[in-house]
């Protein structure tokens, strides 16, 4: 049996991915992604940051195998695989917990869908909840928990699917600023113990800098990668670094970059 602290990880390469949607408003086709190239090393925490509508979510859909790109490749450990869905745990902004299952049942859902017998799945769910300090919520129902707790449960469900790469789509986007900080710190503590590969997307620059080993900056219309930045901040990180000089410098650099880009796009002709 796999426990959560076993090493389970893989590297991800996205090569020349472009994507177009059919759209009658944009002369037949709308290019949402153009020539996106990036790499996430094994056990690395990479954050893609960019404005709303830059195609961040589309990247995750393509990476996860839910959507095939118009062109380009997604490689796992350097190879193209037939059904890459099996390599990814996918978490969304909405917790998507089932109101008729308690937290234990919800955390076990992924495993049960994947075919683990119910009893085994539930006992693994209990273990992981205990391990990460959610044991006393196992019997509660989602409607009885706060937004932050629900997101924790959703993350546990993602983690329990035993998949090497985690894709997190604005996981804390619906939380208030304070709860978001608490959750970010919690996520880092879990990641440091599990060492999965994580690709997270957000439009929150501070969140990106706080979490990431490396930040990928995206611009919109069409979405492409503008720049990549290493975040040399020491780990383990706590919220106290949020006010450090080094942190603010990196944050400013990213902000300037995205701001200039956003202003440039806003000046240009609006495609409609």
């Amino acid at each position, binding site marked *: 049996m796999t426990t959560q602290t076993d090493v389970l990880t893989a590297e991800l390469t996205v090569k020349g991915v472009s994507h177009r949607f059919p759209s009658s408003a944009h002369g037949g086709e709308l290019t949402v992604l153009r020539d996106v190239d990036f790499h996430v090393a094994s056990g690395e925490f990479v954050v893609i940051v960019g404005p709303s509508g830059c195609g961040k979510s589309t990247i995750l*859909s393509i990476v996860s195998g*839910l959507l095939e790109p118009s062109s380009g490749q997604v490689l796992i450990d350097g190879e193209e695989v037939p059904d890459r869905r*099996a390599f990814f745990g996918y978490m*969304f902004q909405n917790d998507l917990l089932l*109101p008729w299952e*308690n937290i234990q049942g919800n955390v076990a859902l992924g495993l*049960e*869908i994947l075919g683990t017998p119910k009893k085994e799945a539930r006992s693994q769910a209990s273990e992981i909840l205990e391990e990460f300090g959610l044991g006393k919520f196992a019997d509660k*129902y989602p409607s*009885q928990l706060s937004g932050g707790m629900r997101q924790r449960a959703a993350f546990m469900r993602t983690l329990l699917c035993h998949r090497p790469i985690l894709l997190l789509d604005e996981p804390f986007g619906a939380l208030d600023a304070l709860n978001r900080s608490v959750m970010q710190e919690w996520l880092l503590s879990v990641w440091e113990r599990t060492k999965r590969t994580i690709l997270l997307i957000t439009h929150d620059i501070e969140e990106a800098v706080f979490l990431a080993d490396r930040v990928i900056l995206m611009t919109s219309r069409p979405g492409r990668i503008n720049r990549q930045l290493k975040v040399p901040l020491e780990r383990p990180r706590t919220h106290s670094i949020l006010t450090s000089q080094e942190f603010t410098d990196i944050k400013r650099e990213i902000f300037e970059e995205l701001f200039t880009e956003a202003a440039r796009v806003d000046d240009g002709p609006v495609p409609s």
Partner: protein
Amino acid sequence: MKMAVEDPAMSPSGESSASLKKRSIFRKAAANSGGPRRMVRDYFPAVVLVVGIMIFWENFNALFNQPDYILPPLSKVISTAVDQAGDKFLPASWVTFQEVLIGFVIAALLGIVLGAILTESRTIRRALFPIVISSQTVPILAIAPVLVIWFGFGMFPKIVIVVLITFFPVTIMTVTGLESIHRDMVNLLRSLSATRWQMFFRVRFPAALPFIFAGLKTSAVISVIGAFVGEYAGATEGLAPVMIIANSSFQTEVVFAAILYLSAMGVFMYGALLLIERRVIPWHYLTQDSG
């Protein structure tokens, strides 16, 4: 269906401590919605209104100087309903109730299955939906006598009418419920390579249950009307023949007493559905403050 098996709150025997705990969570939630003071506050306006209407009704003929058969006093209606219960109303009600119950159960199953089929297959939906909708535009009053010609004076044509008018709300609510899940929920399940079957029974169907129950409650009440209309077109037994005979001899107190029995039947159906709903989807009544 699978829900019912999995939900320990449904099985009266062999409860584990976990399921007992689960029950107590739900019971606490249910208790929170009540409380005597709150009940007084909630029901006071309704009670005042009903009592007012009853007093007005009782004294209507005296006030407006009308003969009793125009609007028989409430006390007379009730005494009629009680005095003639054994040899008239209860046997007649039993016939009508059977039509209501059998028709409703068939309609409920038909509505849920039809709703599921309409949601799962786009082709079938395109083919079937117009027919389902146009079935609801057929005037039941016009078709009821034809059904009597086809199927005779027995229970069958009444059941057909009950089914005809009650499957529709269930179908529509089933479709709405099955389509109510979040788009990302579908993505989550797809990322887990879930089968269609898993998607339906683990997520879509349980998520649809609150909607389905809303449809069932609507249908439960109108099923009484369906049975009555069916009987009105031609029947030898049931509450409608009792009313027709009484009306033709100006025994309006009997007519109103029969209406009381019909209403009681509707209220009973609704209440029964409410109880079943609380057993099947207790989680639907949980709120955040109940933990």
